[in-house]
C-alpha cells in the first residue's frame, strides 16, 4: 500500500502523532528507569567528594552522607548539616549556604571545625559573569582559599567584608558584588554555626563538652 496516499487523511495524521508520542514517551520512560540509579549514584559521589574537599583529609572516617542533621537558619531555611566524625567524635561539620550574587544564586559548601574555624569553602553552583565573577571557583582562581583557617573572631566582625567595604578579602577587578555575596554567605554560615553549635555537634548544650 502506498503510504503517501494516506498522508491527507485525518486518521493517518492522528495515528502517526499518537504513535510518535507513544514511542518517544516509552523511550524516555525506559531511559529514565535505566539511568536513574546511575545518575543518583554519580551525583551522590560528587556531593561526597565536594563535602570531603572542605574538610581536612584525616579529620573523619565516617560516611558523611549518612550522618546528617537538619537545622533552621535565621531566615527559617532548613540547612542540612553533614557531620564529620573520627572514632565516633564529631570533628567538624559541613553545610551549604547560598546568597544572591550579581546574577542569580551562588551556592557554596563550607566546612567548620569544632572550634568554629573554617576548614574550607567551595562554590558549588553559580551563574556569575564568565571571566569576572567566576573567579570564585577554585578551578579558576585560588581566591576561595583565603577563607581557610578564618573564624568569626579572625578577622574581627567589621572586617568580614571585601577590601572595598573596609574588610580583608580581595575583590576582583570589575566584580565586587560576587565576592561580597560569597563573603556575606560565609559570614552568615559562621554565625549559624555559632548559634547552633550544640545542635550541629549533636551534644547537649552544656557549658563544656563532657570529654576532654
Amino acid at each position: 500500500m502506498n503510504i503517501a496516499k494516506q498522508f491527507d487523511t485525518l486518521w493517518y495524521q492522528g495515528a502517526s502523532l499518537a504513535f510518535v508520542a507513544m514511542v518517544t514517551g516509552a523511550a524516555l520512560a525506559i531511559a529514565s528507569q535505566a539511568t536513574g540509579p546511575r545518575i543518583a549514584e554519580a551525583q551522590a559521589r560528587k556531593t561526597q567528594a565536594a563535602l570531603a574537599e572542605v574538610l581536612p583529609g584525616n579529620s573523619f572516617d565516617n560516611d558523611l552522607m549518612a550522618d546528617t542533621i537538619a537545622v533552621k537558619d535565621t531566615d527559617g531555611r532548613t540547612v542540612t548539616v553533614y557531620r564529620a566524625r573520627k572514632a565516633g567524635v564529631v570533628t567538624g561539620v559541613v553545610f551549604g549556604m547560598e546568597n544572591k550574587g550579581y546574577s542569580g544564586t551562588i551556592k557554596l559548601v563550607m566546612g567548620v571545625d569544632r572550634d568554629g574555624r573554617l576548614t574550607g569553602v567551595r562554590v558549588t553552583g553559580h551563574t556569575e559573569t564568565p571571566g569576572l565573577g567566576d573567579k570564585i571557583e577554585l578551578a579558576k582562581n585560588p581566591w576561595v582559599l583565603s577563607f581557610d583557617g578564618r573564624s568569626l573572631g579572625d578577622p574581627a566582625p567589621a572586617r568580614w567584608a571585601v577590601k572595598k567595604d573596609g574588610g580583608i578579602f580581595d575583590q576582583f577587578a570589575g566584580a565586587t558584588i560576587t565576592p561580597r555575596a560569597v563573603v556575606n554567605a560565609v559570614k552568615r554560615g559562621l554565625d549559624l554555626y555559632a548559634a547552633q553549635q550544640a545542635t550541629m555537634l549533636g551534644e547537649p548544650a552544656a557549658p563544656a563538652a563532657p570529654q576532654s
Partner: protein
Amino acid sequence: MSEACATAAADSAPATPTPPAGPSYGALMKDGLWSNNPVLAQMIGLCPTLAVTGNATNGLGMGLATTAVLVLSNMLIASIRNLVSPNVRIPVFVALIASLVTLIDMSMNAWMYELYQVLGLFIALIVVNCAILGRAEAFACKNPVSASAIDGLAMGLGFTLTLVVLGGIREILGSGTLFAGASQMFGPAFHVLEVTLIHDYKGFLMMILPPGAFFVIAFLIAGHRVIEQRAAKRAAAAQAPLPDGAHA
C-alpha cells in the same frame, strides 16, 4: 500549506528511496562550512551562539555537542521521512528531536559522567537550538539518511567553526587569552591550546558580556556577506563575456 516537505515526500516514492540526483558530499560540506553556514548565512541558532561564546573553549564545546545531536537527529528524521504526513511533520520532528536530546542528556549523565560535567550544560541548551529543527525541515525530511548525516556533520562543523572564531575574537579582545580553560574541559592534553596573547591585559569587559557577542557577530556576518558578494561578482564577470551584450 507545508510545501517544504510535501513536494519532496511525494516525489520520493517508497520504491526508490533515493531522490533524483542529490547534492554531492563535497557540496554539502562547502554549504555547511561556508556558503550556507547556519550562523553566518542562515542566522539560526543565534541564542546559544551568543550566550556561550565568551571564550573559544565554550564555543568549541557547544559546537561539538551540537554537531553530534545534528548528525543523529538528521539521520533519525531522514530514516522516517517517507512515513510522516507533511501536515503533522512539525510536531513529529519536535517530539523526536526533544526526546533524542533528552535521551543523550540522560545517557551521558549516567555513563559518561566526566564528559557530562563538561558538556552537560550545552546539551540542555541544544533543545532550544532551532538549527536542529531547521536542518530537519530544510534537508533531512527530503534526503536519504547518508546525505542527511553528511549535512548534519557539515552544518555542525560550520556551527562549531563559527562559534570558535566568535568566542576566540571575544576572548582575545576581552581578556587577552585564547582557549583558556581548555585543559579543564577536554583534558590535560589540551593545555597546549591555552595561550595568553596579551600579558598584563586589563581586559575589555564588554566583549565578554552579551553586547560583545552582538558586535562581533555583526562583523562576522558582514564579512561573510562581503566575501560572498565579491565571489558572486567575480563569477558574474567571468561569465559575462560569453553571452553577448550583457554587462552589469
